[in-house]
């Protein structure tokens, strides 16, 4: 899951830095994730993992880091393998 998230982040995050340089707990907003790009990322994640983020996960915190995104997806798609 981690590598998929990184791939989607790289494609949709619009980050000025390479995703490879970011640790799992690095702050994505500090890395330059804008609110527009975060929504694009959410859409891509929903599509990829075939989930819908419930309202309580649609906040800044859930997308603050790669680890947070992994946790958010795991909480709604418990069958997904967390790699």
């Amino acid at each position, binding site marked *: 899951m981690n590598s998929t998230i990184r791939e989607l982040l790289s494609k949709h995050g619009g980050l000025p830095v390479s995703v490879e340089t970011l640790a799992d707990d690095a702050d994505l*907003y*500090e890395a*330059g994730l804008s*609110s527009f790009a975060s929504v694009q990322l959410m859409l891509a994640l929903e599509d990829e993992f075939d989930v819908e983020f419930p*309202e309580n996960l*649609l*906040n*800044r915190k859930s997308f603050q880091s790669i680890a947070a995104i992994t946790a958010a997806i795991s909480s709604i798609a418990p069958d997904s393998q967390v790699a």
Partner: protein
Amino acid sequence: MNKISEIKAMSLVERARRVAAVASKHADDVDAKGRFPQESIDAMKAERLLGIQIPAAFGGESASTAEIAEICSILGQACAAAAMTFSMHQIKASSVVSHGVDASWHQDFMKRIAAEQLLLGSATTEGGIGGNLRNSICAIEVDGDTCRLEKDATVISYGEQADAILVTSRAHADAAGSDQVMTVFLKGQYTLEKTHVWDTLGMRGTCSDGFLFKAEAPAEQILPKPFAEIAAQSMLANSHILWSAVWYGIAADAVNRAQAFVRGAARKQPGTVPPGALRLAEVSSLLQLVKSNVQAALEKFEAAQADEEKLSSMAFAVAMNNVKIASSQTILTIINHCMLICGILGYKNGTPFSLGRHLRDAHSAQLMISNDRILGNTSNMLLVHKQDTSLLG
């Protein structure tokens, strides 16, 4: 009882009305000359209104957003420029109150706001970013205990009159555009070189000139939280609610004038319903919509305030955006209707029914944070956010 405690013993509404009486007297002159509503701001200071939001522990009165909104509305009925200045000051105060309570410098600053009735200005707009306040080009430079900042601020409302200015910038030289901080700079710590003159259709008295802003101050004056959080948790809601309260005030005064016009016509011809009466009924319904809109936003904000997660949620951001869009658009319809009711006496300046200033001031509403930008932002969120279809939720 000393003078300050005597003033504080009066209700906020009472004090606001006394300021409104002053503001109303000078509103036309402020508008005509495009000058700062100094008499009104002096009156706000005399009535101790600039420090009301500061927690009582720091010498303020812990006023709620609802109380402040009511004052914005009262002032908006008298002089929109004075009311807008008051609202912008309170929006800045909310950033310090919500995000500076844990920092000793900001605690002292809050005490000074209350004690000295400091007027807070804001420099969030910058040349080259297209009005997106969540993006900065300039970066703050921290050098030991000192920070330095230079910003091409295309708009700083009452920049020359403010006692302190809160300025956004990137967090450091290598930070991304959206990785921002907000810093308090006190008068004397910055220089302002005027680059743009505020000569506008309406809201002329806010004197929102453009400046090249250069500052140096102790680094501890940087607010300890990322600006992204400040924007989401206090600025967004406070701006949309307090501005909407000012706009409601402008519209309410326009409706008052239209109603006075219709009543006068009815008295002149007893037994007949004046032609404007039907439109007045229509406008009364629209004004109620705006009022309910602001009231509902206040309730929503109050409910979310205790819960950081709710404040940062998409549902909340969408709701606040919607409040701004609806109130800024509806007041234009309302004032236009009032103009139709009052006819040429509404169109002319210097009559008891004049509405030119109201209409021109109201036109700023859809531009200060462009409605198109806000709609774009909401439409982006609606790609993932699902609406709450309940009536009371």
